């Protein structure tokens, strides 16, 4: 391997990816880590444009290349800066799909290139190796699956696409998957690079598979799926690296493939569900959920008035707020911060207990509260919160449901059984704010609502909090 400036650029790129990822896993260094990786990427890209040489010939078509770079940068930056905070996971999915599509298109072009070489049109009449064909097909299939799946995931988080599945879908998916691999395998072994029909057939099959893979999975599980698709695209990028013997594509791709896979597993652990359960068990979950909802008893619940709640909270020593999806939907985070400040002025110690999967993505609540300027150190993680509930006077639950459902500990038939929850029942009083008694995302009853220490404060989170604030001010 001859040492050249480009090689050094690629080395720097690879190092920044590793260091950047490491820094991204700690809150203090996360933002800088992102910058580090971005700088490395910049160096690798521009090094390639100006220094890449094959057989002594550099790259041309600079006008087109820079045109594409500018277009992508402008659109990408605008989209990323303008999007609402809560719409960011779907944007991540969309960008992931773009990467997958890029990988697939590279394979399309290379296949055409090789077909031309093999058919003798090109002066270098070299037959392609099986290895080359294999990487082309892998890049094509994985890139296409990732692209199609990511678009569906984007639509699901958007609300534009509903869950959909048909009988025997699992079987159909498996058959499609193996058939695609078999055809590609045949083309590789036979070193057949002229069969365009089969090539595009494989591309279409991979796209369909990507769609069907993600379509039946529930919206709440999308972050896990996006993380998995993320690692797929990483592997597709690595295939490109194999194809061009390009070390930076290889390291970047494999790093993301491995890290992404582990991250997916970690996300599943936080929900205490296995990956297979997430990918395939969406049906089983719903059926069990329906059963327990039907058999659950509609016990008696207590309601609390705004004025009682105001008094209760103002004269407490310690209040812990549990935010949930309902808070995000009502966009009540700013009023919530007002409430917190008001209570603190009265000498109440206020904290926020954040469950790892509260809301619609990990970190959703953190982002929501940060948007309202809530101080980062007021947010406590689940483990610490569970220690503090016994010394807490009032717990105020704002639109959270499944993350405080005791059935996760007590009812083996429940779809959320085994998931660690916030043990709010250890506090002296629990006030639950919801719009109605309707079940939450998992579709099951929550026995917390019927317990003696709990009272319900019905209403939209924003309206209820505004009334609470007004009431406390008048005390």
């Amino acid at each position: 391997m001859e040492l050249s400036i480009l090689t050094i650029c690629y080395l720097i790129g690879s190092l920044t990816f590793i260091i950047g990822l490491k820094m991204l896993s700690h809150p203090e260094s996360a933002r800088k880590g992102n910058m580090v990786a971005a700088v490395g990427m910049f160096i690798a890209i521009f090094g390639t444009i100006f220094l890449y040489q094959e057989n002594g010939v550099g790259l041309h078509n600079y006008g087109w290349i820079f045109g594409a770079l500018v277009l992508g940068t402008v659109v990408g930056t605008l989209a990323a800066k303008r999007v609402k905070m809560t719409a960011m996971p779907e944007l991540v999915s969309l960008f992931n799909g773009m990467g997958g599509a890029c990988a697939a298109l590279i394979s399309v072009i290379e296949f055409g290139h090789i077909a031309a070489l093999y058919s003798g049109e090109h002066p270098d009449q070299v037959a392609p190796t099986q290895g080359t064909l294999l990487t082309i097909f892998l890049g094509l299939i994985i890139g296409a699956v990732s692209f199609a799946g990511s678009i569906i995931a984007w639509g699901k988080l958007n609300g534009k696409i509903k869950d959909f599945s048909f009988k025997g879908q699992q079987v159909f998916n498996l058959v499609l998957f193996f058939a695609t691999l078999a055809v590609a395998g045949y083309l590789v072994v036979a070193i057949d690079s002229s069969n365009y029909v089969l090539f595009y057939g494989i591309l279409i099959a991979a796209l369909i598979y990507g769609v069907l893979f993600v379509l039946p999975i529930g919206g709440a599980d999308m972050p896990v799926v996006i993380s998995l698709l993320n690692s797929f695209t990483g592997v597709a990028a690595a295939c490109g690296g194999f194809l061009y013997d390009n070390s930076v594509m290889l390291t970047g791709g494999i790093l993301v493939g491995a890290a992404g896979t582990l991250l997916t597993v970690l996300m599943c652990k936080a929900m205490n569900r296995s990956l297979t359960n997430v990918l395939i068990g969406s049906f089983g979950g719903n059926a069990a959920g329906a059963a327990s909802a039907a058999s659950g008893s509609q016990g008696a619940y207590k309601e609390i008035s705004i004025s009682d709640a105001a008094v209760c909270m103002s004269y407490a020593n310690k209040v812990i707020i549990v935010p949930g999806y309902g808070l995000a939907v009502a966009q009540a985070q700013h009023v919530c911060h007002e409430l917190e400040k008001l209570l603190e002025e009265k000498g109440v110690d206020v904290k926020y207990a954040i469950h790892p999967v509260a809301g619609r993505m990990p970190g959703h609540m953190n982002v929501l509260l940060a948007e309202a300027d809530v101080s980062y150190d007021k947010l406590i993680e689940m483990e610490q919160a569970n220690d503090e509930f016994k010394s807490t006077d009032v717990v105020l639950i704002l639109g959270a449901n499944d993350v405080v459902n005791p059935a996760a500990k007590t009812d083996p038939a429940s779809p959320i059984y085994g998931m660690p929850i916030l043990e709010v029942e250890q506090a002296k009083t629990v006030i639950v704010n919801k719009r109605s008694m309707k079940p939450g995302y998992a579709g099951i009853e929550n026995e917390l609502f019927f317990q003696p220490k709990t009272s319900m404060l019905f209403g939209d989170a924003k309206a209820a909090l505004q009334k609470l604030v007004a009431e406390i001010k008048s005390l």
Partner: protein
Amino acid sequence: MEAILNWAQAHIDIIYIVVLSIFLGIEVIGRVPSVLHTPLMSGANAIHGVVIIGAIIVMGKVEPGHYVTLIIGFLAVVLGTLNVVGGFVVTDRMLEMFKKKK
């Protein structure tokens, strides 16, 4: 079998890179607080945009006159750029919320 072993022998350095990268990727993610799962996913998303380099190489080698290939290549680079730039900007936005208030 013989062909695979020969290939492995010739490309042993790539095999080292792949294996070490896998272990490295797993190690580096080690203990991530769950609140960072989403920004980390977004950052990793931006990093796999390195696939754009392949698209640039492909587009840079297109001979004049092959317009279809050029357009596909153009599309590939645009998509790759969206992945890279969009990815890093979104990640930065997610992380700017993690400032400690004094």
